[in-house]
C-alpha cells in the first residue's frame, strides 16, 4: 500500500506543477532551419526562463501544415509557401519572415570527389536524377553505379533543388535509389556510401560529404562557398523562413526580434548559413 501512497503524492505534484501555467512557443518544420532555432531557443530561454520554446522537426511541409491547423505558433520553412497550401488554409494569413540564407548543394561521397569529379553542370545532375546517367564513369569518374539519394516530397531542400535542377519543384526523380527525410539522415546515408549523390543544405557539408561545384553554361565554375551564396552567384539558394499566422505578438514577437538581432544573426552564421543583412 505504501507504493500506492507514493504514487498519489507523485501525481498530486504533477497536477500542481501543471496548474502553474507557463507560456510556451511551439515551433516545427524544416530541418534546415532547425539548427538555428534550436540553438537560438536555448539562448533565448537563458534570459526568459519562464518561457518554454518547444521545437519539433518534420520538414517544411510539416511546418506549413501544423501552422495552418493552428497546432504551432511558428513554422520553419526552407522554401516558398505554395499556392495550394495557401488555399488549403483560407483562414490563415501566412506571414513569412526571412531569418537567413542558405544554399542547397548537390553533394557526393568523398570517394567520388577525390576521384576527380568536383563539378557538374545542372543538366548533368538532372540527368542523374532522371535516371539517364547511371554510372559515374559516364561523367568521367570511376566505374561505380551512382547511388541517387532523393528526399521526401515535402522537404524544402528538395523543392528548391528540384526547382532549379529539374525545373519543377515537385518533379519525380525516376533515377532515385533512396528517399530519406532530414538532412541528418541524408548526410548519414552519403557517408555510409562511396558512390552517392544527394542534396543537402550548405550547413551539413564536411570532409566526408563534399559539395559539388556547379559548372555554369559559360564554363565558369561556382563553388558553394559562403561568399558565393552572399553574392547570389551560387544558383541554388534559398531564404530560410519562419512563418507566423498574421502579425506576431507577445513572446513570439520577442523571439523573432531576437532572431533578427545581431545576436540572433550570429547564431545563423555559426550554424553555417548566411545572415540576411
Amino acid at each position, binding site marked *: 500500500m505504501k507504493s500506492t501512497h507514493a504514487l498519489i503524492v507523485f501525481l498530486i505534484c504533477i497536477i500542481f506543477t501543471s496548474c502553474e501555467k507557463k507560456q510556451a512557443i511551439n515551433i516545427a518544420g524544416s530541418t534546415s532551419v532547425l539548427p538555428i532555432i534550436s540553438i537560438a531557443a536555448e539562448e533565448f530561454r537563458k534570459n526568459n526562463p519562464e518561457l518554454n520554446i518547444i521545437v519539433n522537426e*518534420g*520538414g517544411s*511541409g*510539416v511546418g*506549413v*501544415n501544423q501552422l*495552418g*491547423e493552428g497546432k504551432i505558433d511558428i513554422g520553419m520553412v526552407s522554401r516558398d509557401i505554395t499556392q495550394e*497550401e495557401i488555399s*488549403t*488554409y483560407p483562414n490563415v494569413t501566412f506571414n513569412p519572415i526571412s531569418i537567413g540564407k542558405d544554399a542547397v548543394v548537390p553533394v557526393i561521397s568523398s570517394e567520388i570527389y577525390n576521384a576527380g569529379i568536383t563539378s557538374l553542370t545542372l543538366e548533368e545532375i538532372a540527368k542523374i536524377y532522371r535516371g539517364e546517367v547511371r554510372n559515374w564513369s559516364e561523367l568521367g569518374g570511376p566505374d561505380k*553505379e*551512382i*547511388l541517387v539519394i*532523393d528526399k*521526401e*516530397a*515535402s522537404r524544402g531542400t528538395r523543392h528548391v533543388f528540384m526547382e532549379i535542377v529539374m525545373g519543377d519543384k*515537385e518533379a*519525380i526523380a525516376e533515377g*532515385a*535509389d*533512396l*528517399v*530519406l*527525410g532530414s538532412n541528418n539522415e541524408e548526410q*548519414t*546515408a552519403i557517408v*555510409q*556510401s562511396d*558512390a*552517392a549523390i544527394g542534396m543537402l543544405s550548405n550547413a551539413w557539408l564536411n570532409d566526408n560529404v563534399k559539395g559539388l561545384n556547379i559548372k555554369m553554361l559559360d564554363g565558369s565554375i561556382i563553388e558553394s562557398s559562403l561568399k558565393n551564396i552572399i553574392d547570389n552567384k551560387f544558383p541554388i539558394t534559398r531564404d530560410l523562413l519562419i512563418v507566423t499566422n498574421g502579425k506576431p505578438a507577445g513572446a513570439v514577437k520577442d523571439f523573432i526580434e531576437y532572431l533578427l538581432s545581431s545576436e540572433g544573426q550570429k547564431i545563423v552564421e555559426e550554424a553555417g548559413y548566411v545572415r540576411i543583412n
Partner: protein
Amino acid sequence: MLGSTSKIGKYYVYGSTLISAFIVFLIFTILIISSWDAITTVGLDLLKFQWNPATGEFGIIPMLFGTLVVTFIALLIAVPLGIYTAIFTSEILPSKYRFIVKSLLELLAGIPSIIFGLIGIAFFSIWVQNIFDLQSGRTIFTAGILLSIMILPTIITLTDDAFHNIPDKYRETAKGLGLYKFEIIKEILLPIAKPDLKGAILLAFGRALGETMAVMLVIGSIDRIPSPIYNWLSPGQTITSKLGREIAETSFGSVHFSAMIFMGLLLFIIVLILTILSQNSLKSNRRLYE
C-alpha cells in the same frame, strides 16, 4: 444504501466493458471516415503503381508489395529458426533451464523496435551493403532480416508452449516403439501442435505487418516495386514506413491525407483478420505479453 452502491458498481463494470469494446469500433470508424474521401475521389486508381501526391496519383501497390515481401522474408527466416529453437527448448533442453530461456526470450521481446532500427542502421544495413557489394544497404532484404529477429521471440515462445502442452505419454509411447527423436517430433508432436503453430505464425505475421520504426529506418523508403520484381536487395517501401514518414507532412482533410489513411485502413483490416484467425487457431489460453 447497499443497493445503490451495488447499482453504481454494476453501471461501472458495464460502462468499462462498453468503453473497451467501443475502442476497436471507434478506430475502425474513424479510419473509414477519414479514408472515404480517397475511396470516392481516387477510387480504383488507388490500385495503381504510381504514388505522386503533386500530380494526384495515389497508387498504393508499391507499398502493399513492399509490406508483403518484407513480411514474407521475415517469416521465411524466423519460422524455421524459431521452430527449431523451440524444439530445442522444449524437447532437448532439461526442463530446469526452461525458466532461464523463457526469461531471456522475454527480454529479447522487450527490446523496443526503435532500438532495432538503430541497430539496423548502425550495423545491418552496412553489413548488407558490404556483403552484397551494394550501393546502399537500405533494402527490402535488410528490413526483412531485422523483422525476422523481432518476431523470433513470439514464434519461439508460442511454439515452445505448444510443444510443452503435449502430454509426455505420446513421447514415451513413441519412444517405446523404438523411434528416434526426430521421428517422434516429425510424426507425433508436429501434427499435434499444428493448430497452435499455425496460430503462432499468423500472430507473428500480423506483428511483422504492423511493425513500423525499425522498417522505416532501414528500408530506403522508395515508392517503387523493385525491378526485376525479385530483386529484394533494392530499396522499397511498406505501408507502415510510408505512414511513419509521410503522415505528418500531409494536411488534415486533403486527398493525400485520406489516401494515407486508406493504407492504414487496409493494414488494419488485414491484421484484424490475421488476429482473429490466430485466436481461433491457438487452443491454449494465449498470454498477451508474449
